[in-house]
């Protein structure tokens, strides 16, 4: 990365803009342990240390405009190594949350809107979902040792409710069988729900706390309705 010839007058910059944020970004000593441990460091210009520095200086607009803060996978390795205990991953989310939703890169927001409107990222109708689940369950029942296998849907009073990653009812239906065989062998009393079954909450990734709340709330509501005490949310 080379420096530009443009000069910013510090009289125009307000360093106190983000001081009320709770991420401790002001403590940064620019040691670069975060950048050193980040698996996405340098990809498409992503640099966790630079992100923290720009927030400390108050240069927020540029960060919100840019695409590179969206490269972060939120893995949290940076937070793990930071000697000043700065919540770097949370800071990335905060920056992301400030972007106009139409400008969110890729399909992230579109998928999230689909989930808010239909209960899943694919806009997969309820009947189609049930068909796919029962179809895969029949294949499982044909395997030796799994005679009579059925996949419970909307089972009231079950012990465990599990969400589903949308790809498992789209391109990777075979992977559903791994989960179900484990449940069967463990004699687990489990179920999925026919609506709001989506486990991939893209609001976490796009910094949309309100959307996250809605999706989590729906799952909790179902647990309450179906009187299920335990939740498996493998996302």
């Amino acid at each position, binding site marked *: 990365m080379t*420096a530009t010839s443009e000069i*910013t007058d*510090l009289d125009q910059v307000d360093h106190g803009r983000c001081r009320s944020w709770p991420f401790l970004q*002001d403590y940064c000593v620019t040691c670069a342990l975060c950048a050193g441990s980040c698996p996405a460091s340098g990809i498409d210009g992503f640099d966790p240390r630079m992100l923290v520095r720009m927030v400390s200086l108050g240069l927020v607009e540029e960060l919100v405009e840019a695409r590179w803060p969206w490269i972060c996978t939120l893995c949290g390795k940076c937070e793990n190594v930071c000697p000043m205990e700065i919540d770097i991953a949370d800071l990335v989310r905060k920056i992301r949350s400030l972007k106009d939703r139409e400008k969110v890169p890729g399909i992230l927001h579109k998928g999230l809107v689909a989930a808010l409107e239909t209960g899943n990222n694919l806009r997969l109708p309820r009947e189609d979902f049930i068909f796919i689940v029962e179809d895969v369950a029949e294949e499982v029942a044909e395997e030796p040792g799994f005679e009579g296998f059925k996949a419970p849907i909307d089972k009231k009073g079950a012990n465990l409710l599990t969400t589903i990653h949308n790809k498992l009812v789209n391109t990777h239906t075979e992977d559903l069988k791994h989960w179900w065989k484990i449940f069967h062998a463990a004699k687990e009393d489990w179920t999925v729900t026919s609506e709001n079954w989506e486990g991939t909450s893209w609001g976490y990734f796009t910094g949309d706390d309100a959307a996250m709340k809605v999706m989590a709330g729906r799952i909790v509501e179902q647990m309450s309705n179906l009187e299920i005490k335990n939740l498996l949310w493998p996302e």
Partner: protein
Amino acid sequence: MNNKTLIFGNGPCAHHIAEDLLSTGADIVIATTDKTCDFSPSEHSGSIEILTDTRLVSCHGTAGYFRILAAQNNNHITRTVAGIIVAEEDKRKPNFSLYGLKASSHVIRLSRMKKLLLDSFQEESFLSGSKKVVFLTGLVKESHPAIAEEVMHSALRLQSDFNLQTYILTANLKVSADGLEALYRETKEAGAVYIKFTDTRPEIHSESDDSVQIEFVDEITLKKFRLTPGITVVDETIVPSDYAADLSRILGVDTDADGFVQTDNVHRFTVFTNRKGIMTAGPSRSIQTCSDQITDAANASLASTELIAGLQIVPEDRAEIDKGQCIRCLTCYRLCPYRAITLNTRVVVEPHACERCGICAAQCPRGAIRIKHLDPALISKQMVTGYTPQKEDAFTPFIVAFCCSRSAVQARELARCMGHELPSGLKVIEVPCSGSISLDHIFAAFKKNADGVIVLTCHEGNCHSERGNVYARQTVDQIADKFPQIGFEKDRIAIQTLASNMGTEFAEMVNRFEANIIELGPSRLKKL
């Protein structure tokens, strides 16, 4: 003999020491070149005398009985004290020229900023408004935690109390002292911005109207910035004060390379000097942060209390000058690293100050100085103890190793514990300090049929007598130079330095020396 302690100094450290000592019931005298002294102690049982406008002229005597002559106004005054503590303040050199700046209404030195923040009248006008304050520190020469502490304290006050945006431009921020990392966080919380420079430096321009403009690249974001501060503060270099230099000269105290009143010798830790009864603490001892000075003050008062208590017992076995032999050449007086020799009608060794290093005895041209157990004749007898004459066909060299008690003797013990093999013909002669090794000692070894003599001393700079190992080296070099002229191999004598924890190295040194001697064969003196 009285129990008074004299404190030179009028700063926070000196006051701390005074307060501490008074609270133990000690009697103290404070002497300062300042015209006034505002030290007011709390309840105390000891006595205190404060001498202002007072400058040391001379000091005679020894621990327990120092006779001070000082100039006060136009008079001379004398005092007698048991111990002395040098606790003067430091001198600050402002670094304007390092940053290409000159002092002006907009550009000030760190000490002036500190003063402004203390002075409640001036602060109103100078520190008002919405101007920015920039601190330049450690950008040309490395800074120091003591300076970083003052920069950060000032920045904290400017942000919190005056609401001024503060920038600290630095290369390495020195936080390796008590409380500085926490202080750094506090300044950040208060809004101070740090710009750290590793590969680049800021460009600092002074405009015609004395205002300052700074352009730099922030090395993290790689953005170019321009900064126009209302006030620019340059850091300072800390050096010993001129008076501290005078004091060390008059008191005969060794200084380090920068002129601080204590050498980097490990044996001087904590507040001691080469002279018993004279201690140094605070900024005159080294560059110190606030918490360093508090620790120093506590150590100084402790040392002083122990000194006074210890003066009750007169040490035995110190060096003694045979007055019948002494010709008053004053060699011992000049050489004694502890200034333990005084001149009255006779030249006398002061028992309290003598450390039995043996330098005086080794160097006296008349051999007029005796220290118990360090007689060359006695040592000569030691050399043959346990020596068994060798068979004709096997040559096991008889090697005499003069070992300093503080390093080599302990290293040898460690070598033994570690199970290292040592030459079977090795005879170790322990001496308190390598400075006590005279020509006589070494010749005695060769006369007693040593095939080789090795002298093992403390590392340079770590000799308790500061120079004992230097004198030992000079003695060995003298002999080694002369040996070839008389047809004797110069490699039969060697000198090396080591530390008390170097057991492996001790074994290596003596084994390698033995191998050299085996090559040379038996000493020709043996046939005589």
